[in-house]
């Protein structure tokens, strides 16, 4: 049990108002686009209109001669410097600027640098590229056909197949599926979507030829990893590279990879000796940077007649686009997709994934998702409903029957994970109570009698976050630890820095609350700084809900180091043995004499002014935290929808989200994260897809086609929580940012299918647009 702190201190569990807000509400944030340096010039990308074409010639003379243009960089220029290709974050490489051919529409072909952004845009129009069409491969199923065009001529393997990955017991699962009395099968496509943070990607690269130092302000969720990669790829000494991720306008996984625009800006700055700014447009962002999902999945469930689950078999085809630019741990080609047994106690399971290349933008990144967990949660939660329908059983009853029981934790899943803690029945029961499930079912029955369409969808997801333990988790070889360094100043105020980088999550507040909890220094007296690789300790960054599980734990541990040193100082000041001291947040006191105490502020002052003999001066600590396991947040979401038979429009009438993310640091911030994640889930379920036509033309490449919900379409979310602490995290916390995005799509889709199930509808792929629903209503003869 963690000691309770006062609101003035503001430790764990206080809804402290955010420290970062003031600059944002005054318009004084500093995003990359706000960085303005003397002599700064602007870069503009020239992109391919074709999805697959041979480059016959790139003519740059007209652009070069345009007044105000300083440089035009092509793939051939980069080739001379050995920089025309760069490694992706997952065992592949990617063209920085195309040489030989282009492999997706909007691929980077040339980079124009000019004195101002308008001139750069004008000159980019003057770059002439001769293309010769090549056959376009859009359908991933066709990628493996013998007569399919081979896209990646640069690879030794003359195939579009990237990887095969499997986990679990194939033979046992096949046998269970063969013999089971009840089977259910689901073919589901999780469409290609895009994180679309409101701020696009961009950078300002500034090479100082006098000092040899390269400073890059970058929209980066992982600045340290980027620094190391720049050093390895460009051959610059790592001490001469400084990556600064300033305020970031949302990330959601989009800002984990290194993009060609960053590399071109660095090259241009090295060449010109001037700072180069490159900010992509929204359309460039949607069309060329890290997409997510694009998983074609099949799930088969085996069960007894009473609904007891026996086995799960999953087969998936993953479309990675032109380059495998997934950003995920190197031992996991399909990320943590093997969490697909979800919240259920399966004895047997098997999962396999094949990845292929197509003529689409490269990816797939972990969009608000701990590496393919969203796909897995969607698949199992959708498949459970298909089985319930098959069994003519209530989907809630089926779930309750098969949940991993609370007394079975830590639970070993058949696909190799050790779930740290859980109480799935409790979360489900709270959600049922909050929404009034039984009454809703009765209402639905009445409405069906009257011909009205209403549906209830349930999703009881289990997440896997906080990557991760060094023995298994690394990104391009760098272990996935994270870090915190704390300095307590003589007057008792503190500054702390982490290897993570917030993009809206509120780290400046929550990490200060962790220190407040551990040391009793008020939140108001603590500054949190992230994102500057010259000052922050090394860490792998913020994505995959890893900040609280990993950097949060590091913050806790660094604080405890300071506290232990403080104990020595307090003993010296109070002239007692350390063992005779007790701690409460903010002070050490003598056991049995609470009046005789030294506050953390007094201790801090003494650390610089009155030390016990032999003790090192100062009050600082750094901790690199290697988590012993991942954390497994979970929850139950219930969605109620009404369908308009005239238009096919689905209205989300109510949505209850019960989340369990262990001990909560700041309830206000957690609730805000849940609201936001649910809204992104709503968008994915009903509105968004980056689709391609047969020629590889992007159909969802602007905000006119790739829809983001407004305040009008977004319902009010109802939240609730249960609390099952993580047994291995120092604060019992688990991480929450992604849960709503991972858990909600299935709840939305289950609700729509439930509304139409009596008509024989078993599945509808996302996005469930009014047009798609209306076509079903029409086919079933119920459209009005």
């Amino acid at each position, binding site marked *: 049990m963690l000691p309770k702190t006062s609101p003035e201190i503001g430790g764990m569990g206080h809804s402290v108002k955010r420290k970062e807000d003031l600059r944002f*509400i005054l318009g004084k944030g500093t995003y990359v686009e706000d960085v303005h340096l003397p002599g700064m010039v602007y870069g503009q990308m020239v992109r391919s209109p074709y999805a697959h074409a041979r480059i016959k010639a790139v003519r740059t003379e007209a652009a070069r001669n345009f007044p105000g243009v300083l440089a035009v960089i092509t793939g051939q220029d980069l080739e001379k410097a050995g920089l025309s290709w760069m490694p992706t974050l997952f065992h592949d490489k990617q063209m920085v600027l195309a040489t030989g051919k282009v492999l997706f529409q909007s691929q980077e072909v040339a980079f124009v640098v000019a004195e101002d952004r308008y001139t750069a845009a004008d000159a980019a129009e003057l770059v002439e590229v001769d293309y010769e069409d090549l056959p376009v491969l859009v359908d991933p199923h066709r990628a493996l056909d013998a007569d399919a065009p081979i896209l990646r001529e640069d690879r030794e393997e003359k195939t579009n197949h990237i990887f095969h990955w499997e986990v679990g017991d194939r033979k046992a699962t096949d046998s269970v599926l063969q013999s089971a009395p009840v089977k259910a099968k689901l073919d589901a496509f999780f469409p290609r979507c895009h994180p679309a943070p409101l701020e696009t990607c961009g950078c300002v690269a500034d090479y100082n030829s006098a000092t040899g130092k390269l400073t890059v302000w970058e929209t980066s969720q992982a600045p340290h990893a980027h620094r190391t990669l720049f050093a390895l790829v460009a051959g610059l000494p790592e001490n001469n590279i400084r990556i600064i991720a300033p305020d970031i306008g949302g990330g959601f996984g989009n800002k984990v990879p290194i993009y060609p625009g960053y590399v071109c800006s660095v090259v241009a700055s090295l060449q010109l000796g001037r700072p180069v700014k490159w900010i992509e447009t929204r359309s460039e962002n949607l069309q060329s940077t890290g997409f997510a999902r694009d998983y074609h999945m099949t799930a088969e469930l085996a069960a007894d007649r009473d609904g007891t689950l026996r086995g799960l078999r999953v087969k998936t085809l993953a479309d990675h686009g032109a380059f495998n630019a997934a950003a995920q741990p190197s031992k996991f080609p399909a990320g943590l997709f093997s969490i697909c047994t979800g919240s259920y106690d399966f004895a047997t399971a098997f999962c396999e994934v094949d990845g292929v290349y197509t003529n689409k933008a490269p990816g797939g990144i972990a969009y608000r998702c701990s590496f393919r967990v969203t796909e897995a949660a969607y698949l199992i939660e959708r498949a459970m409903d298909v089985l319930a329908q098959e069994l003519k059983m209530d989907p809630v009853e089926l779930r309750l029957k098969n949940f991993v029981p609370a007394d079975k934790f830590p639970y070993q899943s058949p696909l190799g994970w050790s779930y740290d803690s859980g109480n799935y029945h409790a979360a489900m029961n709270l959600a049922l109570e909050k929404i009034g499930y039984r009454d809703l079912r009765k209402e639905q029955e009445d409405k069906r009698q009257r011909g009205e369409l209403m549906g209830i969808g349930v999703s009881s997801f289990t997440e896997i976050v906080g990557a991760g333990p060094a023995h298994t988790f690394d990104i391009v070889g760098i272990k996935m630890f994270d870090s915190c360094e704390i300095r307590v100043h003589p007057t008792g105020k503190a500054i702390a820095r982490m290897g993570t980088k917030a993009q809206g999550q509120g780290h400046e507040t929550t990490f200060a609350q962790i220190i407040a909890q551990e040391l009793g220094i008020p939140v108001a007296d603590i500054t949190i700084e992230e994102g500057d690789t010259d000052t922050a300790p090394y860490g792998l960054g913020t994505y995959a809900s890893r900040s609280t599980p990993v950097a949060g734990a590091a913050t806790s541990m660094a604080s405890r180091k300071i506290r232990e040193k403080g104990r020595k100082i307090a003993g010296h000041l109070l002239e007692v043995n350390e063992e005779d001291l007790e701690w409460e947040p903010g002070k050490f006191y003598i056991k049995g004499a609470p009046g005789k105490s030294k506050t953390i502020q007094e201790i801090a002052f003494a650390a610089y002014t009155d030390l016990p003999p032999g003790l090192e001066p100062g009050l600082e600590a750094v901790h690199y935290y290697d988590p012993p396991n991942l954390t497994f947040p979970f929850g139950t979401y219930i969605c109620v929808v009404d369908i308009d038979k005239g238009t096919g429009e689905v209205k989300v009438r109510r949505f209850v989200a019960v989340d369990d993310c262990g001990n909560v640091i700041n309830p206000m911030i957690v609730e805000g994260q849940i609201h936001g994640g649910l809204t992104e889930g709503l968008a994915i379920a009903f509105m968004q897809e980056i689709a391609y036509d047969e020629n590889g033309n992007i159909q969802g490449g602007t905000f*006119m086609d790739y829809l983001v919900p407004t305040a009008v379409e977004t319902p009010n979310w109802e939240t609730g929580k249960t609390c099952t602490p993580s047994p291995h995290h120092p604060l019992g916390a688990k991480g929450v940012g992604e849960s709503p995005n991972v858990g909600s799509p299935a709840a939305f889709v289950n609700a729509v299918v439930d509304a139409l199930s009596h008509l024989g509808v078993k599945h509808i792929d996302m996005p469930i647009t009014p047009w798609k629903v209306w076509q079903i209503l029409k086919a079933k003869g119920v459209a009005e």
Partner: protein
Amino acid sequence: MATKKLVRVKVNGHDREAEIEPRVLLAHFIRDVLGLTGTHIGCDTTNCGACTVILDGRPVKSCTVFAVQAEGREIRTIEGVANNGQLHPLQEGFKEEHGLQCGFCTPGMILSAYALLEKNPHPTEEEIRWGISGNLCRCTGYQNIVKAVQYAANKMSEEKHVA
């Protein structure tokens, strides 16, 4: 390059002028020429509203207005919402109700809400949602933004009452 034009505007109460190309967007004029970077640009299709400013009392998406169209007019940007260091009730509401996360949409959102409350000091939830429907937020799910606007409406009405 076209002949430059002189543009004179009143921004947040101050007279500013500059010679610019006629094609320069108001958003770029405000950011790059006037140096007021609180106005953000989040898309290229007039959908997101991050660049919303108030032009002669009406909210506009400044990425879809030429700076020369603002000649002789009054502009209010996020930098001009607080009054002598005193937060506007909307700014206070966004902080108190956790109406922002990454902060990128916040300036545009506050200015749309500002224009809404000028016109309709007591909006219903529905009216608030429509009032900010030209502004996209990817982080908050809008629920707390609605509360922030309600907070401001209540506070402004109390202040008026007291005055």
